[in-house]
């Protein structure tokens, strides 16, 4: 049987996490190809709708990466993200989507190692959960 390869949509902020992901590359660290990056200016740009849509379209996981609290390039964008993420988990539970498939992590531009580590661990986690059932079971 072919190995199951999850699809993880990753929203990375330009200033910290995307730069951290670039550093992981420059350092030639390895992580699975299930990590699919979309670069946004700030994690606060991420509308909860993007996350819900990703799931309904069939993504197996959604990862949001931002600057560490206090380090946001735009001063307070990641605080919005943090609150929105807490809300998103509630919305997911209400809709019957699996909130355990969501991940938020603060990764700075210097943390290439952390980006690779989180990518590896998160992919393993999603692999254990298996395919996202909401693509068949949820109709909104």
């Amino acid at each position, binding site marked *: 049987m072919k190995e199951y390869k999850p699809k993880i949509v990753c929203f990375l902020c330009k200033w910290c996490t995307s730069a951290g*992901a670039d550093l992981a*590359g420059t350092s030639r660290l390895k992580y699975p190809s299930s990590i699919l990056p979309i670069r946004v200016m700030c994690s606060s740009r991420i509308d909860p709708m993007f996350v819900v849509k990703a799931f309904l379209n069939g993504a197996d996981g959604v990862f949001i990466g931002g600057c560490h609290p206090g380090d946001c390039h735009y001063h307070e964008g990641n605080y919005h993200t943090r609150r929105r993420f807490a809300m998103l988990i509630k919305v997911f539970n209400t809709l019957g989507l699996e909130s355990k498939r969501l991940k938020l992590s603060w990764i700075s531009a210097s943390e290439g190692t952390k980006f690779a580590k989180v990518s590896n661990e998160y992919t393993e986690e999603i692999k254990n959960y298996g395919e996202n059932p909401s693509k068949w079971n949820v109709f909104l």
Partner: protein
Amino acid sequence: MKRIGVFICHCGINIKGTVDVERLTEELAQYPGVAYIENYIFMCSEPGQKLIRDTIIEHKLDGVVVAACSPTLHETTFQDALEEMNINRHQLEVANIREQCSWVHDDIEEGTRKANLIIKTAVEKLKLNESLTPIFASLTKRVLIIGGGIAGIQAALDIADGGYEVILVEKEPSIGGHMIQLSETFPTLDCSQCIMTPKMVAVNKHKNIKLYANSELESIEGFVGNFKVNIKRKPQYVDPDKCTICDDCTPVCPVVVPSEYDEGMGWRKAIYIPFPQSIPATFTIDTENCLGFNPIACTKCSDACEPDAIDYDKKPEYFEEEIGAVIVATGFDLYSVDNMAEYGYGKYPDVLDGLQFERILSATGPTGGEMYRPSDGKVPKEIVFIQCSGSRDPERHLPYCSRICCMYTLKHAKLYKHKVHDGQPYIFYIDIRSGGKRYEEFVQQAVSEDGIVYFRGKVARIYKEADKMIVHGIDTLTSKKIEIKADMVVLAMGIKPNNSAEKVISNLKLNTDENGFLIEAHPKLRPVESLQSGFYLAGTAQGPKDIPDTVSQASAAAAKVLALLSNDEISHSPIVAIVNEELCSGCGICVSTCPYGARELDEIKKIATVNDVLCEGCGACISVCPSSAAQQKNLTDEQILNMVKIYSYL
């Protein structure tokens, strides 16, 4: 529909190694919207860019996707290529298939599959990109320099000589940094203070330089060209305009504390001038140790001060300044010797760090340049220098090479030998890194003429026996144990970012690497700029370096700032928020969300507006808009959702 050209870069084998570029070209040729697709060995090269330019004409392209390295590296290169062909620079997208794809995957199947998806997202985004023109804003032709060491001083003088105003902020009561503490400098052995003080005086005298000593940056707001900063001047309690530097105050001061300037090797009073050549030349009261803040306890200095310059009630002062750019030159501190317990620092007074030894060597130091050891004032006859103390030791200490320790240790040994002719210096080293101009010659001369003995190896332990420091080490070249009965031990500590740098850097929202050094925009091609526009880097704040490199980098940063300030207007990214007036209900959530005050309510139309000049394009106001009236130009909800679809569809 837009005619899009896709150009896939091999980057030598950097991309081609894990991405099958030929197959990718075939696969994506059929993708809707792709009018032309090609792969080439180096897209960023001139032939690569020419390929783009020629294809734009030949295939009548309206947009280009370059699948290559991270957009931080070559986005502007390719945007310029488009502009040359009269295509708007925002009709370019870079698909990052190197840093975030080929370099992090081993399997060619996996790499190719993922690169395919990444390129498709770029194509989807580009389909809806609008052509935008930059927003122009006015430019304040002044620069803020943080740090008054040699880097900050050099940059300040260069910019001031170029005719622009400089605000120089230094946290200590005097400028000069660590360089003013040094005795001589390698490899020429010229006196550090002799070359430094004229520059310090020049800063003080220059009509274009405004110096805030004993001051710190409180806050900064704005964007490149238009920053507003708040500077806090800590009280010195001595009015510099009244103070005549007569020095009547220090003899009467009853409080004696270790001198920072002498690295604890000498003493100073609670009212003090850091060193004789201090700029600004005035006395300072050290609040932590002075008794005078309780008027009943002591007013001795105030009584002795004839011009009545001392005011214990002085409060911090705050200054607003408008500036256009910032140079960060916060410098270094030595890696703390407290981390080196095995070498007995702190326990044995004759175990010193590099800067302390520097003070003993210095003619203005506590011993007046005579070689005496701290414990009993004897002339040390045998000294052991230990290189890489706390450097190149990823398990326990700093992982990196501090670049200056090999040379400063050698200089120490040489200067010691010049003072104590019958003395014997020994140096333990891992490698000798003498990669500067005339550095290797300096090493060879020291070994052949000064009789310095080198042992390749590390020191395991130091302990005291009678009045000798017993140094146990190993010489890995002869595999022999070494035991030296030394009179003194000098640890060549590595350097790390200045202790105050973290606060400054987090205030400025700049990025640092894992060791706390500032990250440059490009490690090779943009070494003095930060990725955040308007911020420039100089000196050891960016990484360990010696004085010549620091001065070169400071001048380079000054040149960059001069180029910026020579413009009359500054262009601001047009990737800003936009409001659909039909949909906006004027609820005002965006107004309270914007950290820059760029969103306002139009009281007449009852809708929210965007001030393009203030908008930094973070997008926070877009995702809070309940009616989707707010959008981010060229990163709309529709564009992001189309990208999400590429990744998440079956």
